[in-house]
């Protein structure tokens, strides 16, 4: 049974990231890079919330969340790059000039405007999810087939983005930005600002997902996960529900991607390769699927662990991640949050139960 969370945990979480870390930076204990790194993890956590909605709650394993994440990142990247180009008095971003392109491709045009960029960063992933979802859910594709098809789709998109002819920078991706809305991206205060914005968006996304999963809508999602065929005999249109949650998950991934870009300063197709899309699902699996806190903690902890591991034992990260994943699947099927929960229950049992081993 789901237990109610003590508000203290939320307060601790918010206090740690919204007060303690920034204070640590302002008083000189932490470098601005540490701040920026955590800001990026928040973006992953936002995308992880979407994965938890579609996979953890609804039972649909979507492997194209990394692609939606990239759509958000690329959109903002295009805008930043155009701003820089115009400021330098040029018409075309450098890489296009090198590729001997003469006019700006039509799909770059709307990204001159910040407002349009924001709209398109959300609209394109949402539309994409809607169309893909409509086709797949209508033809009642489920389970492992769903995972394979969405993974294949991501792979196809990855290949398209790799090509120079796509005019999105190919393998090198888009990089080398100066400013966002006139603020210098390399300045520390802008980095801190982006960190705070990402954290605020993460909190907002969490509470939105909390509302969704605790509403009757969320219960229908769980019912779809448990027994998809049964729920339609209770007059629920399964396709509508799946489509809605798929679009919401795509939007969350895109929002994560949009905030991620100005903090890393680069986006390449590598963010949506097979490894990246599997890794995103792993955050949620390790954190605890079907549990929003698990998704957030999973994304934060796995990435934190990644940063430690890459400096301590480079090259071994995938083995460590794989090992953790196997352990989780075998022993803690509810992930980190499930582990915490069972430890807490065991403690409570030993404390309150009268010993029964006296005989």
């Amino acid at each position, binding site marked *: *049974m789901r237990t109610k969370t003590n508000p203290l945990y939320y307060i601790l979480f918010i206090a740690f990231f919204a007060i303690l870390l920034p204070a640590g930076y302002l008083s000189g204990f932490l470098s601005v890079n540490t701040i920026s790194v955590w800001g990026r993890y928040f973006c992953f956590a936002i995308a992880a919330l979407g994965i938890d909605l579609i996979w953890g709650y609804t039972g649909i394993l979507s492997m194209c969340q990394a692609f939606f994440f990239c759509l958000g990142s690329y959109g903002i990247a295009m805008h930043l790059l155009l701003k820089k180009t115009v400021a330098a008095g040029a018409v075309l971003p450098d890489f296009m000039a090198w590729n001997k392109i003469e006019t700006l491709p039509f799909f770059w045009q709307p990204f001159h405007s910040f407002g349009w960029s924001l709209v398109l960063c959300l609209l394109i992933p949402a539309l994409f999810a809607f169309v893909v979802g409509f086709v797949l859910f209508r033809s009642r594709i489920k389970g492992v087939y769903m995972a394979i098809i969405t993974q294949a789709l991501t792979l196809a998109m990855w290949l398209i983005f790799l090509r120079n002819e796509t005019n999105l920078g190919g393998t090198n991706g888009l990089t080398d930005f100066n400013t966002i809305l006139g603020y210098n991206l390399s300045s520390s205060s802008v980095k801190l600002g982006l960190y705070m914005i990402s954290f605020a968006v993460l909190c907002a996304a969490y509470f939105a997902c909390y509302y*969704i999963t605790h*509403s*009757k*809508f969320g*219960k*229908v999602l*769980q*019912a779809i*996960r*448990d*027994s998809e*065929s*049964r*729920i*339609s*005999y*209770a*007059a*629920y*249109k399964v396709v*509508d*529900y799946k489509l*809605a949650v798929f679009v919401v998950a795509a939007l969350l991934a895109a929002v994560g991607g949009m905030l991620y870009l100005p903090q890393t300063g680069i986006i390449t197709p590598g963010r949506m390769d097979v490894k990246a899309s599997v890794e995103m699902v792993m955050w949620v699996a390790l954190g605890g699927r079907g549990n929003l806190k698990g998704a957030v903690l999973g994304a934060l902890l796995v990435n934190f662990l990644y940063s430690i591991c890459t400096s301590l034992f480079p090259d071994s990260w995938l083995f460590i991640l794989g090992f953790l994943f196997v352990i989780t699947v075998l022993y803690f099927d509810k992930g980190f949050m499930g582990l915490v929960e069972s430890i807490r229950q065991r403690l409570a049992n030993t404390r309150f139960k009268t010993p029964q081993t006296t005989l």
Partner: protein
Amino acid sequence: MLLNVNNLSVSFGGVHALNLDHFSLRDKELRVIIGPNGAGKSTFLDIICGKTKADKGEITFNGKPILGKTEVKIAEAGIGRKFQKPSVFPGLTVYDNLLLAAKMKKDIFSSLFFKATPALAERIHAVATKLSLTTAMYKMAGDLSHGQKQWLEIAIVVLQDPTLMLIDEPAAGMSDEETEKTGALLLELSKAHSIIVIEHDMKFVEQIANELVTVLVRGKRLMEGTFAEVKNDQRVIDCYLGRTNAQLETL
């Protein structure tokens, strides 16, 4: 007639599972369907509720054809189904199972902004009381006993408030006492709903079959009559003969 079925047939891989010339049901009638294993009883209900597509034939419900409609459309038209293998939502509490079933708007926005009214909560509790589920209200449905799952699924159908209830083997896995109680409940429900019940337990059939009993054998309608007529019909006895003696003895 509330439900009219003509020349309905379906086969799975060349085997005729159902070949029903005619079947009809009055409004507020309680009909029992019996027949040996594999007779096509569940398949018949599967076709009515849209789970299985028929090869040919026609079914009208309330005067409107329902063959080929989606499960949701059929459910909306007022047909509720309890499956042979109890199918509830194991990861939700009993209360949530009932909440999802209850008759209301079921589109995504209504669900997202749904607020439980006291009247609805009261109705859910009333149905739960009738089916002895009150003490299990906040248990996960997956943790219930087999008998309780059967009752939960009946409660789900009751809360949907359909015109026609399709109840597949409600007494399977229940104790005599529970079976008796289920029978009494179905009789009470039949005052306000039309019901088709499939059952093997002859004592149970005797309890609830105040009206007609339909006998299906190898996908065909063998006969239709009162319980006494069916019980004494030589063809019915023959088709149960050599299958399970237990069933024959209770007949």
